[in-house]
């Protein structure tokens, strides 16, 4: 499994433009908000947690249709299924690779972007603490969606329609954690709920994605 993960990460590094495109999309999309709602610091600061969460969610969706799509088109998916690795672990490796190449870089730039949006510094910690399990869960959910649309002709359009509804709980609790810190409430309950969502997704999503990948090969 580590070899599949290493292969995925190496492939993304070789095609580094994908990760850079995700980060640029995130920064540009977040940069549109001050232009649209006006530059007042108080207003921006209040909107910042939600803005960052929505932009991170949309940016994480960008590379998903290539997650299995490229392997399906060039025949590598068959080889992965025959590699002796159970499909669920193969899917887990895919999700981990997606997080390393998308979730982790987003987490790193989320801080500077939050400051750009005038978010009060004491809400920064809860925002990033929430993004950690949040992006992990998004990678797992996204892997399920990506596996389900393998071989579908309009997969790129179908994928967000499948994943975004599933991602709403993550968005709600993630943005609520940071907003709670803005109003000087404890973000602990929301963060614990985010962790719970991650713990729930960790065993279930690879199983579903693995089954979908095997069905797609048939």
């Amino acid at each position, binding site marked *: 499994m580590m*070899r*599949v993960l290493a*292969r995925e990460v*190496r*492939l993304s590094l*070789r*095609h580094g433009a994908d990760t850079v495109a995700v980060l640029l999309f995130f920064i540009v999309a977040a940069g549109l908000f001050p232009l649209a709602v006006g530059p007042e610091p108080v207003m921006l600061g209040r909107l910042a947690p939600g803005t960052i969460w929505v932009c991170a969610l949309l940016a994480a969706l960008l590379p998903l249709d290539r997650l299995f799509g490229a392997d399906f*088109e*060039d*025949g*590598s998916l*068959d*080889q992965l*299924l*025959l*590699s*002796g*690795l*159970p499909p669920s672990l193969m899917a887990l490796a895919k999700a981990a690779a997606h997080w390393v190449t998308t979730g982790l870089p987003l987490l790193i730039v989320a801080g500077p972007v939050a400051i750009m949006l005038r978010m009060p510094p004491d809400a920064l910690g809860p925002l990033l603490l929430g993004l950690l399990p949040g992006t992990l869960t998004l990678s797992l959910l996204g892997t399920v969606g990506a596996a389900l649309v393998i071989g579908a002709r309009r997969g790129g359009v179908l994928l967000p329609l499948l994943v975004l509804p599933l991602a709403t709980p993550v968005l709600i609790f993630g943005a609520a954690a940071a907003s709670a810190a803005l109003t000087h409430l404890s973000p602990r309950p929301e963060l614990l709920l985010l962790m719970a969502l991650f713990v729930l997704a960790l065993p279930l999503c690879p199983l579903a994605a693995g089954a979908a990948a095997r069905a797609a*090969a*048939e």
Partner: protein
Amino acid sequence: MAAFRGDHLVFADLSFRLEPGGALVLIGRNGSGKTTLLRLIAGLMPRAAGDVLWSGEDALADLPSHGLRLAYLGHQDALKLGLTAVENLALWARVGKEGRAVAIEDALAAVGLEDLAHLPARMLSAGQRRRVAIARLLVSGAVLWLLDEPTTALDTASVARLGGLAAAHRAAGGMVIAATHLDLPLPGATEFSLS
């Protein structure tokens, strides 16, 4: 065995067995189910009826370990164009598996690509990519080779080389099932007609 593709019954009432060192050549017109049969044996396709037995036991009961026994060369070469030939093979190499697997450099030398080992696959011609895919059979160390039109894009020298590799594989107790329209140099192979 029988298999459906959608609602269409591709074949039914098939049966054959293969001994260690044996080879089977599947022949039949386009659409007669050669690829379907190979994918069914690999466990990539569901079967409508019948069994795939390995030493008398149901081979498809444990798909991950069944996958380790076989190497599948499909229509597509399954190469990542951004990676070099060596990097492409590294994921599939199972060194030390039953002592059958060949080191990556030796496998590339066996298909005559040792000089191009560190070029990205993007720079290779179609025939050279096919030869990297053939080298994957060697590094996988699998007992059973499933070859789907293995000679696509190969020149005559490479076809002869593939014949030599298959002969060596069979001499070591390996098995080959190949689907092909062209003559493959597989001496003593049983022909199995799907029609």
